[in-house]
C-alpha cells in the first residue's frame, strides 16, 4: 500500500463529485491510500493569481506548508490545482526573497514552508508509481470495442514538463488500450476548453468546446475521458448549449479517467458516479455494464 496526502480541490465536492467518488473507488484496487490534507483551502486557481499575485502565492503556500508536515508528496486530481500549486511552489523555490515574504505571511498563522514539497497530479502518480502493468492485471471487465477519446486538456501537461509531452501526450492513450478499449486518434487532445472563461466569456468558451467535441466525434469516439474537473464540466454540462448554438447533435458522455478504470475493474457504476453526467453515459456504457455484473 502506498500513502499519499491528498488535495481534492473545491470542485471534487461540487461539479466533479463523480471524480471524487471514482478516485475513492479505484484507490483500493490500485493499492493507494489517499489521506485528505487536513483543513486544506482553495489553491487560489487562475482567478486569484490574476487579481492579487502576492496574496495568491500565500494562499497556495498555506496548503504547501500543511503538506510539508506530512513529509510526503502532495497529490491532487485537479489539473488547475496542480498547476496553481506547482507554480507557487516553483516560484517560492526559485526566488529566496519571495520565500522569505511568504514565510513572513504564513508566520501570522503559525505556519512555515521550507520549500520541500513535491506537487503531483493523480494521473502522473497512477501512471508512474502504480504503472499500466499493475492496472492491466486488475482488469476483470475488458472494454473491448469501446472507442474512447483521451482528452488531456492543458494544465496536466503544461507548463510543467514532466511525465508526458506538452502537446502530444500519450499516457491516457496507453491507459485506454490497457483497459481493453480503443484509443481513437484525437488531434485536439491537449487543446484548451476555455476553463473558467465559460462563465464570463461563454461565446469564446463554447467555440473551443465545440471544436474539441467535433475532433473527438469525427474520429469515431463514443466517449471522452479526462483527468480535469474543469474540462469535464465544460464538455459535459455545456454540451447542450453547444448543440443549441452550433446546431449540432453531440451526445457524447464525458468521463473521468478514473471512472473508466473503475468500469474495467468491475466496480459498481453507482460507486463510480457514472450516473452523474449531464450527458447520460447509459446508452454507450450499458453493453459493458452487463459484463461487469
Amino acid at each position, binding site marked *: 500500500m502506498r500513502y499519499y496526502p491528498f488535495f481534492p480541490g473545491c470542485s471534487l465536492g461540487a461539479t466533479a463529485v463523480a471524480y471524487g467518488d471514482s478516485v475513492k473507488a479505484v484507490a483500493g484496487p490500485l493499492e493507494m491510500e489517499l489521506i485528505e490534507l487536513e483543513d486544506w483551502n482553495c489553491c487560489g486557481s487562475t482567478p486569484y493569481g490574476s487579481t492579487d499575485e502576492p496574496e495568491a502565492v500565500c494562499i497556495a503556500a498555506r496548503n504547501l506548508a500543511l503538506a510539508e508536515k506530512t513529509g510526503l508528496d502532495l497529490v491532487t486530481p485537479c489539473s488547475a490545482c496542480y498547476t496553481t500549486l506547482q507554480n507557487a511552489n516553483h516560484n517560492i523555490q526559485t526566488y529566496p526573497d519571495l520565500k522569505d515574504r511568504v514565510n513572513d505571511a504564513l508566520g501570522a498563522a503559525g505556519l512555515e514552508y521550507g520549500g520541500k514539497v513535491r506537487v503531483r497530479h493523480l494521473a502522473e502518480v497512477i501512471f508512474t508509481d502504480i504503472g499500466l502493468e499493475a492496472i492491466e492485471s486488475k482488469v476483470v471487465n475488458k472494454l473491448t470495442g469501446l472507442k474512447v477519446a483521451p482528452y488531456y486538456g492543458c494544465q496536466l501537461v503544461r507548463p510543467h514538463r514532466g511525465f508526458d509531452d506538452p502537446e502530444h501526450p500519450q499516457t491516457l492513450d496507453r491507459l485506454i488500450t490497457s483497459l481493453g478499449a480503443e484509443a481513437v486518434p484525437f488531434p485536439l487532445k491537449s487543446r484548451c476548453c476555455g476553463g473558467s472563461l465559460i462563465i464570463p*466569456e461563454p461565446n469564446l468558451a463554447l467555440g473551443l468546446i465545440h471544436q474539441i467535441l467535433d475532433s473527438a466525434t469525427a474520429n469515431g469516439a463514443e466517449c471522452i475521458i479526462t483527468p480535469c474537473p474543469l474540462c469535464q464540466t465544460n464538455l459535459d454540462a455545456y454540451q447542450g448549449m453547444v448543440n443549441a448554438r452550433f446546431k449540432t447533435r453531440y451526445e457524447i458522455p464525458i468521463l473521468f479517467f478514473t471512472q473508466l478504470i473503475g468500469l474495467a475493474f468491475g466496480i459498481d457504476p453507482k460507486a463510480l458516479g457514472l450516473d452523474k453526467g449531464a450527458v447520460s453515459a447509459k446508452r454507450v456504457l450499458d453493453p459493458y455494464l452487463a459484463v461487469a455484473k
Partner: protein
Amino acid sequence: MGTKAYFMIKTAREAGGEGYEEALKALEAMPEVESIESVSGDYDHVARIHAPKSVVSVANKILENEWIKHLEVFKVETDEPNPFLEEVCAIPAGESIRSCAQCGMCSASCPNIDKMDYSPRKIIALIRAGRRHEALSSNTMWVCASCYLCTVRCPNDVKITEMMHALECLAVDRDLASSRTATPTMYQLFVDSIKKNGRVHELGFMIRFYLKTNPFAAIKMAPVALQLLRHGRMPLRARKIKGTDQIKAILDRAQVLGGAR
C-alpha cells in the same frame, strides 16, 4: 540621457581604395560618433552614435558628406526610464519578457487571439515601449484561458501566461481593467468566495456574478445549473474551512508586505 543608435554606413570609397581612410577618420572625428568599426558585406562601417536631440538629425549630418552612398538606422536604444517594464519584470518570471524576439510564435499558438485587442506578441512590444495605459486597459489578458501553449512553444522561454496574469493584477491595482469583458468581475467574486470560506462555493459566486453583470444571462444558463443541481453537482451551501482566521491573518500580513518578487 538621450538616445543611442547604430548606423550601417556605405561609402563611395571602398576599402583599400583612395580616400577610404580619410572617410573613416572624418566619421570618427564627429562628436556624435562614439565608436565605429569596419565590416564586410553590403556596408562598410557600423557606427554607434549618441543623439542628444534626434537620431534623424545625426543621420542627416552624416549624409551631408558627399562620399556617403547609403545609411541605414540599424537599432535605436533609449535610456529613458520605463517603470512599466520594471513593474512587469518584478513579478516572478516577469524578467523573461526582456528576451522576447518578437517572433510571433505565441500569437500563432493562441486559441483566443481573434478575441484579443492586442496579440500576445504586441502586448510584449507595448510593455517594452512603456505604453502602460494601452496594455493595461486592453482585453487581451482577460481572454487568455491560461492554456500555456504559448509558454511551452516560446523559443526564448518567455513566461507569457504568467505575464498575462501579472498584467491582470496590475490592471486591477490601477483600476484600469477593461469593462468590455466580465472576467475581472468573475475573478474578484471568486477571490471573495475564498476569503470568506477558505474554499470556493460555485453556486454562491455564480449567482453573485450574474446579479452583478447580466441577470438575463442567468436565464440562459439556468438549464446548465439545473442539470448540475439535479445530479448533485452543485451544493447549495458553502463549506467553510476551520482555518478561515488563518487565511485572514495570512492575507492581512501579505497586504502589509506588498507585491513584487
